[in-house]
């Protein structure tokens, strides 16, 4: 007998459950952390260091395309209704970005100090919350968002929590990378457990 509720769930969330598509995001965060720690560096001929971030982002995120094609070849394709728009949250996102940027610049120019709160961590947490809200399922996403937000904001209460801003941002990137990988793996396993192997005609006669 078929678990119809699971069939319905997996079909409705098919694209969300292709968790390995997020693997390049994890790798990008790991590489970024390694770069911040000085463990890796660009080749000597790469002289425009300001280009490093966008080029690396494009290269890593481009890996998402072949992974998506692999899912299509292995599990098939479906067409779903357009994803629900999150317009109210997009406004909140831009307000958050603008507010954080203004606050960072104000602190930097008025006190010549960097803010203790990690804006990067808050941006990543916000994207995770947006994803959780769009999917309306996946408590694992909510947990990850809360952990990242907490790691970003706790220096407000304990300035000595991180030895430096670099360590703070590396720690947040590592937790984000591990969290995104864990979330992706959970989703992928949910998908694979429902979509069984392709049965051949010989197996049915056996």
């Amino acid at each position, binding site marked *: *007998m*078929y678990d*119809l509720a699971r*069939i*319905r769930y*997996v*079909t*409705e969330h*098919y694209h969300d459950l292709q968790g390995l598509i997020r693997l390049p995001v994890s790798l990008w965060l790991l590489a970024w952390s390694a770069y911040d720690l000085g463990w890796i560096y660009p080749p000597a001929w790469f002289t425009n260091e300001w280009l490093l971030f966008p080029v690396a982002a494009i290269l890593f995120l481009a890996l998402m395309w072949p992974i998506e094609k692999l899912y299509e070849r292995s*599990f*098939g*394709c*479906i*067409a*779903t*209704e357009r994803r629900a728009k999150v317009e109210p949250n997009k406004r909140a996102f831009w307000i958050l970005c603008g507010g954080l940027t203004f606050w960072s610049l104000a602190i930097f120019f008025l006190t010549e100090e960097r803010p203790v709160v990690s804006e990067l961590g808050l941006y990543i947490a916000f994207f995770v919350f947006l994803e959780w809200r769009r999917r309306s399922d996946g408590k694992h996403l909510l947990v990850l968002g809360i952990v990242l937000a907490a790691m970003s904001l706790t220096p407000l209460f304990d300035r000595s929590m991180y030895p430096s801003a670099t360590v703070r941002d590396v720690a947040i990137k590592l937790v984000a990378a591990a969290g995104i990988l864990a979330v992706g793996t959970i989703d992928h396993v949910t998908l694979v457990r*429902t*979509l*069984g*192997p*392709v*049965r*051949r*005609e010989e*197996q*049915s006669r056996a």
Partner: protein
Amino acid sequence: MPEPFEEMAGLDRLVHEPARLAILTALSACESADFLFLQRLTGLTKGNLSSHLAKLEAADLIWVRKETAGRKPRTICGLKEAGQTAIDGHWERLESLRRDARQWRPVFDPGTA
């Protein structure tokens, strides 16, 4: 009023067959799905799945389209309005049967004792 257990015999077998019910449930949750997805979802062999899809298409519950993705042929299926009505009606009927079955009590007839 028919007993709920008698009503069960009157369920639409075309829709109620487990594999076809699974196919219709999946198609009701998306706009269309290709053959490979339905095959992985139902665990049926290619021949079995083709047979079920043919029956559903013949009953005008789904549409089936063959197209070419690159060089590879691909079969895509989707639910028609009649199919959506059929699956919705089927679930309503099952829910009603469930409620009736829970409330059902045997009636003692002294004449047959």
